[in-house]
């Protein structure tokens, strides 16, 4: 009975998390912010480790709050470097990643050395643990994921205008700047929520691959969001069953593996299709 309720909870969490990550993935891929999403997920590490060091609490809410702050700071740091330094976009991204991830590694090393009780939670943050996520009170995860997904779906038209033609968007959406900040914050929140299931190391992969698979299949942004959601949900479901049957394997790699296989498969199918039919 207990196992069944945990499994049901995991399935519901998969549905909502998958929807949210799918929306964010489609948005990040077309906005060419996949790399920024990856960096922000890595950059959450110093926030998590230092939140744990200072509070000695293994409460996921507290750790993820720390993670959110440092992820957001990394995004701001990237924008700041891009503005003041004569660096290309990739250079500014690399600088942000190396700075914040190094800080996180140092924090992680200190946590390990001090042997603080409950430090296992920090390890789970690296590779993800879906079972812990579901065993905790998952209602707020689900509600937040649901609200985020709804927001992303409702604002699809705004996203299209903003991403496709920024100058035009400025003439149509008077408060465009605030919209962009909202989307950046929502991306950070989605990454941080997904971290517990997928882990810091593989969250970037999950931000990029579902949207990429969807982009390879369709040429419509609406369909792309829908397909990206489907891919993400399936990835999480496979992760759930993977963890259920192979309890010693972390959930992150199982979840991230499915979209990667699908991405390679879609690419190969695309090559074969275009060589047979002559169409792209």
């Amino acid at each position, binding site marked *: 009975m207990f196992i069944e309720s945990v499994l049901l909870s995991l399935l519901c969490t998969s549905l909502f998390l998958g929807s949210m990550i799918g929306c964010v993935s489609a948005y990040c891929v077309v906005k060419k912010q996949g790399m920024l999403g990856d960096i922000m997920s890595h950059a959450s590490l110093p926030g998590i480790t230092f939140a744990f060091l200072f509070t000695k609490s293994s409460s996921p809410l507290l750790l993820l709050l720390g993670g959110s702050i440092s992820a957001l700071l990394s995004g701001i740091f990237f924008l700041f470097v891009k503005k003041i330094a004569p660096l290309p976009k990739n250079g500014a991204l690399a600088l942000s990643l190396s700075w914040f991830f190094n800080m996180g590694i140092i924090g992680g090393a200190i946590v390990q050395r001090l042997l603080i009780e409950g430090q296992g939670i920090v390890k789970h943050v690296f590779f993800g643990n879906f079972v812990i996520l579901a065993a905790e009170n998952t209602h707020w995860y689900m509600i937040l994921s649901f609200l985020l997904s709804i927001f992303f779906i409702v604002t699809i038209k705004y996203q*299209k205008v903003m991403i496709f*033609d920024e100058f035009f968007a400025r003439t149509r959406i008077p408060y465009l700047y605030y919209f962009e900040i909202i989307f950046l914050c929502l991306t950070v929140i989605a990454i941080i929520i997904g971290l517990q299931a997928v882990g810091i190391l593989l969250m970037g992969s999950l931000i990029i691959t579902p949207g990429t698979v969807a982009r390879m299949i369709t040429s*419509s942004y609406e369909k792309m969001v829908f397909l990206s959601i489907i891919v993400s949900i399936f990835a999480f479901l496979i992760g759930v069953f993977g963890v259920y049957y192979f309890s010693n394997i972390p959930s992150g790699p199982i979840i991230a593996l499915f979209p990667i296989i699908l991405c390679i498969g879609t690419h190969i199918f695309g090559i074969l299709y275009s060589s047979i039919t002559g169409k792209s």
Partner: protein
Amino acid sequence: MKNNSKGIITVEDLSVTLNGITIFHPTAFSIPSGVRCAIMGPNGAGKTTLLKTMIGEIKPVSGRTLFWDMQILKCYKDIAVVHQQKDVDWNFPITAFDLVCMGVREYFNGIFVSSYVREKAREALRIVAMEEISEKQINELSGGEKQRVFIARAFAQEPKLLLLDEPFAGIDVFSERIIANYLKNFVDDGNAVVSVHHDLYTACDYFDWVIIVNKGIRYVGPLSEAVIKEYFFHVY
């Protein structure tokens, strides 16, 4: 400065500095309604800078631009802007039809694109003779077709003033004629067009008013062969 009467656009004491270089010293002029106005000048003269400053994309050091004696935020729905194509993400998954839908005022109403918006978009595409390839992806269109689609989007906005940045750059003669014809009809309906333009040979055919720019405003007024000879002799 031959024309200082209140018009559809009134520029008051506008001064612009970019990267420490003053592009425009305090300058004032106005553009009357019912004209096709070209902003002309040599490369790097500040034509696009002037256009972008007028619509608030570049912040001036001093001065302001009024449209119908109002700030742009109060009347932005009546103004359609067509930027240079290089500012657009061509890899974005969107069809020509979807792009034109974006221009319709009611586009943001509701989650789905309404049949009213679709009809308006079809009508706009029909004007620029693009309805047959409306379902093509935007990156599959030629330069001229892209420009016509962007003009269609501007038309779908049902504006009273159309601001264009080099609408004839890099397009074929067929597309150029369609756009020029559309602009003429648009102005004949009582609206106005302000466009950055660089071709001296077609200027008098497509426009009847001109702002000549070269490190400052050199002339604002009606466009004629005589004006081109007089001012462009010094400009080029």
